[in-house]
């Protein structure tokens, strides 16, 4: 019996709980559980990087959901329910529903996977050449930071745009929170002290993930989210509401420009480059410097972006 089947069964169980649950808070918590379980499925299928990203992001999105639910339902949020699934649909809705039903049943009999072996040329080339071309031992990191660095660049740009959109749409007259308000965590001494003990470890773990991204599982995105989680802990224990959000947003944009500059360095780390022709013994050093630099910049950028998102959402909750 493969462990993946057990995890898939648990995933389906949590999914059915999401479908039939009507209490808002429970839906949100079951979504978190689903995210965690599906990240374990990824881990069992041999992709620790994706598993880390999914688990971190699932945990992060849950905070936004809870803030939104608190905002929608006020003091009744913990008991609030949402209505039953609507049974009345229009004609178009009925046609689409029938289409989905037929498609779902047909999908059970269609083999989506090709019967012949897939073309493994790209996989083999990446596995064989990543160490020489980009350096490092993590092939996924090599693809993200070397072969597809421009892809990563525009993905980072998308995060900047998302942060700006959230900032724009959450901007109302009471734009900031006055200092002096306390977080609710302070009432619970056990939670307060355990967060105080755990938070530096989270920061160290995030920096470790960023710095070791090129030789083991992890990387800029995963480490960046872990560092951003440290700021949440800081918010909980330190009673700080007036953080310099606008400065951090500017810093994020500057880091994005720096990342674009680092992308130019990729010209010098190839085996065809000037560096290799003149100093072949120093190529590995150049490659490692490039990978660590790119990973740290991506990590800092993601941490800044998530920090701004978190503080915008907290502002909404406290308004």
């Amino acid at each position, binding site marked *: 019996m493969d462990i993946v089947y057990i995890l898939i069964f648990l995933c389906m169980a949590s999914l059915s709980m999401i479908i039939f649950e009507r209490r808002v808070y429970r839906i949100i918590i079951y979504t978190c559980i689903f995210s965690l379980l599906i990240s374990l499925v990824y881990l069992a299928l041999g992709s620790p990087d994706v598993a880390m990203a999914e688990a971190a992001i699932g945990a992060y999105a849950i905070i936004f959901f809870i803030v939104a639910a608190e905002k929608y339902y006020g003091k009744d949020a913990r008991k609030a329910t949402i209505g039953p699934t609507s049974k009345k649909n229009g004609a178009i809705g009925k046609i689409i529903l029938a289409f989905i039903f037929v498609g779902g049943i047909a999908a059970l009999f269609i083999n989506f996977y090709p019967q012949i072996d897939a073309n493994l040329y790209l996989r083999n080339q990446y*596995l064989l050449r990543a160490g020489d071309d980009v350096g490092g031992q993590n092939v996924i990191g090599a693809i993200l930071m070397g072969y597809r660095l421009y892809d990563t660049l525009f993905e980072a740009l998308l995060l900047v745009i998302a942060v700006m959109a959230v900032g724009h749409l*959450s901007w109302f007259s009471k734009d900031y929170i006055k200092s002096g308000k306390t977080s609710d965590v302070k009432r619970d001494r056990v939670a307060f002290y355990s967060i105080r003990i755990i938070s530096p470890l989270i920061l160290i773990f995030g920096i470790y993930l960023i710095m070791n991204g090129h030789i083991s599982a992890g990387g800029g995105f995963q480490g960046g989210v872990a560092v951003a989680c440290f700021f949440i802990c800081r918010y909980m224990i330190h009673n700080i509401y007036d953080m310099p959000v606008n400065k951090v947003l500017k810093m994020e944009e500057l880091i994005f420009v720096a990342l674009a500059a680092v992308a130019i360095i990729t010209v010098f780390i190839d085996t065809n480059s000037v560096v290799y022709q003149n100093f072949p013994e120093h190529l590995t050093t150049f490659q490692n410097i490039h990978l660590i630099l790119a990973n740290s910049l991506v990590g800092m950028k993601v941490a800044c972006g998530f920090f701004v998102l978190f503080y915008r959402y907290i502002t909404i909750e406290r308004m």
Partner: protein
Amino acid sequence: MEIFGMSILELFPIVLFFISIFGLITANNVIKSIVYMIILNGGVITFWIAMGSRLGRIPPILETPYHLENYFYTFADPVPQALMITTIIIGFCVTAINIIMINTLHRKYKTTDWKSLTELANKETEGGYDHTLSDVVYEIQDKEAEA
């Protein structure tokens, strides 16, 4: 383990995908719609990861050349994994913007029910006025400035 001639690993993401599309159509509350979008994202990612692990499930981290020689044909495919990290970040951006958009709508219409939201929004735009989300933000800002 097989059902209908397909292994469960192939079937699971497809089931996730269709369940979440069904939920997106039938959900009558905003929060459930966003949750189903997250599940849809998870289904697509699982599909690609499962496809990449057909040859083997060893993470593609080359510790030594010896490791590469021994396990070359049992490494998972690194290409879909690198692409799926991108997908996860984009899915998160979409979720964050979704929640904040709905927050803006809730600020104006005081409901998260799809039907009442649609009715209220339709009532306002009867004159053919193209009502964007930014207009809603500016409207609320003006009201708060007056008050």
